[in-house]
């Protein structure tokens, strides 16, 4: 698909004496049908009818261990304490096999095996989960792997998946950002994980620092304590006229245009966000279902956001890289899963109850997995401890639910130890291609022209994993 360059379009407009407002989003992006509002974030139709309309990405940052969650390995238990034949290289040296300290159990009609760490999630939604056990990435390091999982490239600054999807579909509620990131503080690589790179700035995520507890704390300056909304609307209209005039005298100033748009969004956000982020408006039993914890509130906010038409919600487990259990994987994974199992179970249940799960794709996973072997003591974090697991990009698990994926389904397999994906391997690019497919996009055609060529989320890679599509 050839998308007309913004600049020439704007020049055309200035020649015609029209402002930006007269343009429809579809002509702006060369996508889908015309919208009434003319905003780059207006809802658009994808290439074909997709199963999923929106995405919740639960990012277990730091790298959860597959053999302790969704990929049971009896062989590993047999080899516990012994050197295994295929000890692959990861970030740090690892030694003998380390059996999972967690019990696995089969759940649902599908009999999906899940460890005790996600017992509540499995009990609530095993038959909705589609477990891709054969994921693999490029390198065993956080930063490049975060970039690959979020932006489709380990090295180059590229737009994030959420930005691409917002660009492709716009938002169903323009009074909220199309792409919201919930994270208390910042994860490793900070805002680079959700940047829009060369896509227009309006497709970048709005980061909500969930450290704050009240709505006012979540988004700073959300309320004007001096003037009412009506008067502010008039002020915004006046500001708009100033900015339109300013823009009409300039050529191709994307930054100025994005800034102009941001005031409209901010104005509407005042009302809508107050509502969307206020979990106290939920009945007590719902809040209790999620658990009245920070994590519970975040998952509940995620549901409230997608319910209100936010296109892509990315929910980070915590700042930094909480799942990075180089030591004491048992203790740490138990603590971490304990924080999110109930909220996740509640989210899936809640989405189902509301009929939202069928067109909401839930993605659960980290930037990579962990080794089935024990990390050997070295300097820094793992002094003298032999109870942790190193990073592992050779094989890891990502679980999906809703949005048109097969429920109670397992795709692919790692080797007998759970180290490397060996059967029906799925690269991160393939996962991206499949996610776009579920949303109704041909990943090779969702492109943006920049610096002389058409770019896409999957670059020159990506293969749709048909087996997981219902």
């Amino acid at each position, binding site marked *: 698909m050839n998308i007309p360059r913004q600049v020439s379009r704007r020049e055309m407009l200035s020649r015609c004496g029209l402002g930006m407002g007269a343009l429809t989003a579809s002509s702006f992006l060369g996508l889908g049908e015309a919208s009434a509002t003319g905003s780059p974030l207006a809802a658009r139709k994808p290439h074909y009818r997709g199963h999923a309309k929106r995405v919740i990405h639960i990012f277990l940052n730091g790298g959860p261990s597959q053999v302790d969650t969704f990929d049971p390995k009896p062989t590993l238990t047999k080899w516990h304490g012994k050197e295994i034949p295929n000890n692959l290289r990861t970030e740090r040296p690892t030694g003998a096999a380390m059996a999972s300290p967690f019990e696995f159990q089969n759940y649902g009609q599908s009999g999906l095996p899940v460890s005790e760490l996600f017992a509540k999630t499995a009990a609530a939604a095993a038959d909705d989960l589609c477990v891709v056990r054969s994921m693999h990435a490029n390198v065993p390091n956080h930063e490049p792997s975060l970039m690959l999982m979020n932006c489709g490239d380990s090295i180059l600054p590229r737009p994030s998946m959420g930005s691409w999807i917002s660009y492709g579909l716009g938002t169903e509620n323009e009074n909220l950002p199309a792409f919201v990131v919930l994270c208390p503080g910042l994860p490793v690589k900070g805002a680079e994980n959700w940047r829009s790179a060369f896509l227009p700035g309006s497709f970048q995520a709005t980061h909500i620092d969930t450290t704050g507890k009240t709505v006012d704390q979540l988004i700073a300056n959300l309320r004007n304590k001096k003037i009412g909304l009506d008067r502010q609307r008039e002020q915004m209209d006046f500001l708009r006229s100033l900015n339109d005039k300013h*823009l009409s005298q300039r050529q191709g100033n994307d930054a100025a245009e994005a800034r102009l748009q941001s005031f409209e969004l901010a104005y509407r956000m005042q009302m809508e966000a107050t509502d969307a982020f206020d979990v106290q408006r939920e009945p007590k039993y719902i809040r209790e279902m999620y658990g009245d914890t920070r994590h519970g509130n975040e998952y509940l906010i995620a549901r409230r956001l997608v319910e209100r038409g936010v296109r892509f919600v990315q929910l980070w487990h915590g700042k930094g890289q909480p799942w990075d259990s180089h030591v004491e994987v048992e203790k740490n994974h138990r603590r971490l899963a304990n924080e999110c199992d109930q909220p996740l179970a509640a989210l899936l249940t809640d989405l189902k109850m509301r009929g939202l799960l069928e067109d909401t794709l839930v993605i659960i996973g980290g930037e990579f997995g962990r080794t089935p072997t024990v990390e050997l003591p070295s300097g820094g974090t793992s002094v003298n401890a032999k109870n942790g697991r190193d990073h592992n990009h050779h094989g890891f698990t990502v679980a999906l639910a809703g949005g048109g994926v097969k429920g109670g389904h397992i795709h692919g397999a790692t080797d007998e130890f759970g180290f490397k994906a060996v059967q029906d391997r799925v690269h991160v690019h393939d996962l991206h291609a499949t996610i776009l497919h579920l949303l109704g996009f041909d990943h090779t055609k969702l492109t943006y022209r920049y610096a002389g060529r058409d770019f896409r989320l999957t670059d020159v890679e990506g293969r749709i994993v048909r087996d997981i599509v219902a």
Partner: protein
Amino acid sequence: MRTPAPVRISFVFSCLLLGTTAAEYDFELGDQEYLFREAETHWSFQPLERPVPPTVKSDWPRNPIDRFIFSKLQESGMSPAKEASAETLVRLLFFDLIGLPPSPAEMDRWTKDWSEKKYRALVNHLLASPHYGERWGRHWLDVARYADTRGWLAAGREQRYPFAFTYRDWVVKALNEDMPFDEFCRLQIAADKMVGDDETRKDDLAALGFLTAGGRFLNRKDSIIDDRIDVVTRGMMGLTVTCARCHDHMFDPIPTADYYSLYGVFASTTEPKELPPIVDPDDMTEEQLEAEAKLAEMKTELTNFKDEVARKLRGPEKIAAHLEFSVRMKSLNRAKTISEALKASVFLKVAERWGRYLAAAQKSNDNLWSAWHAMAPHLVKGESGKAAAAFKKLSSANPAPPRRLLDLIAWVEPANLKELASIYADLIAETDATKPHPDATTEALRLVLNDPKGPLANITGNNIENFWDRKVSGSYRKLVIKFEGAVVDMPTIAPRAMVLEDMDKPFTPVIFERGDPSRRGDKVPRQFLTVLEDGKPEPFTNGSGRMELSEKITDPENPLTARVKINRVWMHHFGKPLVDTPSDFGLQAPEPVHRELLDWLATEFIRRDWSLKELHRLMIFSSTYRQETIGAEGAEKDPENRLWGRMESRRLEYEAMRDAVLAVTGELDRTLGGRPEELDGENATLRRAIYGHINRARPATSMLTFDVADPSLHAPRRAETTVPQQALFFMNSPFVQERVANLNALTKVKNPQQRIKKIYRRVFSRFPESHEIDAALAFVGDNEEKWEDLIQALIASNEFAFVD
């Protein structure tokens, strides 16, 4: 030609390299031999040669920069943009050079009779302003990953650096004085060596904050050193040396050995406990002297605490407790020993000393302790009867225990170990004296504490920290935290430099394999990077080698330093850099379109003694700089503006934006330097944003919202995002609302047209056009309250936020 090797990336790959052009590599990653060969021809490693500016047939060029620019434009069939208006240029120059908008009067003064002469005069005027150093100092502080705190530390520890601001102020001052950039760099690495005993240069010691004001990474030494290597190498030379911490660099000719050579330099330095004041005691103000006195008092409090703890060990209670515990601990395992000692308020190391002392006394059959040794083993088991029986036999022992002791024990009849210990403890404490005593028993008792082999020998307030337990050290830490906090909160205390100094014995580094300090590899000398030394680096011999390192970096033959600096300065003047990766000039950085221009500027920079102000003039006096942001051919032909056929439109960064809001409302406090102040909240400072307190672990929300670089790491370039939270700041923040109210009060005149003119002049440094007056009048109507809405809208507008 080399045969492409398969990509091998399945091992350690911890450095994210931005700006690479290909995701696939036709060499084996980390193959240093190959990378060194590549470096031989890579543009940035080539010696600086002075290209001849092309000859062009046009009267557009004003200086050689323009000839390079014009020539490339011409090759592409393009021509430069028109020259921007006087008003545009005046506003641009003000923001670019001092980060503040021109006042209406300044706008009038400078645009009147606009000419080349006037333009140059304005540039010189602004370069002479003390605000120049604040503006350009802030750019350097991004490179220096400057913050006022140590970063995340264990609970309770004081995170704030009391004196980081002296480094910030030094940077501002050095730039204002146009200190040659090479010296500027050298001082930041080795000021202690350069200043020496020269009292007149004392304030240059503050330059070392470049190294010391970084994060403390939970006080992990290796991480602190890594951060220092990074800020020096990426910051000054655009080389990602720290990628070679765990393995040879994947993409650049930097073997791990080179990393550890530099590691050795920084590991051979130490930070003194007492930071030197940069003010002479003779020159201190009364307030400063008072603060110094108070500081001394607090320090005495700390010393007293330690002395007191040491003194108490010689008192009867502590002697008894330690005596008792030295016996009890024999039957306890290690963990239990530690916890029981803590419970008994006994210092384990001291109890062990008592234990060893008693064992020696037993061995030598010391009659002072024979009663102890006879009774204690029974008493510790609660068998006082057996102890009494053993005691009875003692009177016939040879040598007999001192009479006084025997009588005392007989009279007390100790029922438990504690009572026996107390008898001894009282006697020992009573006789504690420095002078020998004529009475033999008294003298024997006196010697327990005063013999050089005694259990408390050489334990004083100075070294008590090595002995005490975590309960006492916790109390002491609380005092220290209080002290550290007081130093930060005592604004009158004389400013001090965050210095470093060489250790007496420099450290010879070894390679840590895979970055792991427990896996020690080969020894390497402290020396400079191999690739910049024609493969033959000479070991450093002057102490840690910091002086030599700084000289290598600023050697005019160093191909990187000047190029990297030119690129950074260009980026700030022209809105984007010539080389897209300002902190990575390694093999992955493609040769820039305007390499010759870059090289010419670099040689010119060195030729003009590394003068930054000269460099600014060179760039700003060019025709290239004076172009409009709208190109002659539109943006079609060169959407990326790689050929500079127009200027880049720029949004004010956080600091300039905040300063500008305060400036137009007339509230800006232009005081220079000093301790940091809060940027947000009720006590938000009215000073320039560079004086805002930067918390490394948790920067002010407004800073984060407006893309201020994360101060945890050196930042090559700030991101520029547009998010609704930025808009909300202009719409709803109390900060903006207060500014608006003040400007409203300042511009309130009867005549509404006049009022609008005043407001426009203040906010945009220009008069409104008549249709703008009409629109504003229509907006306000007859509602007096809406004047504030109007002013707020103007401040929130793109015209205010962008410079173009």
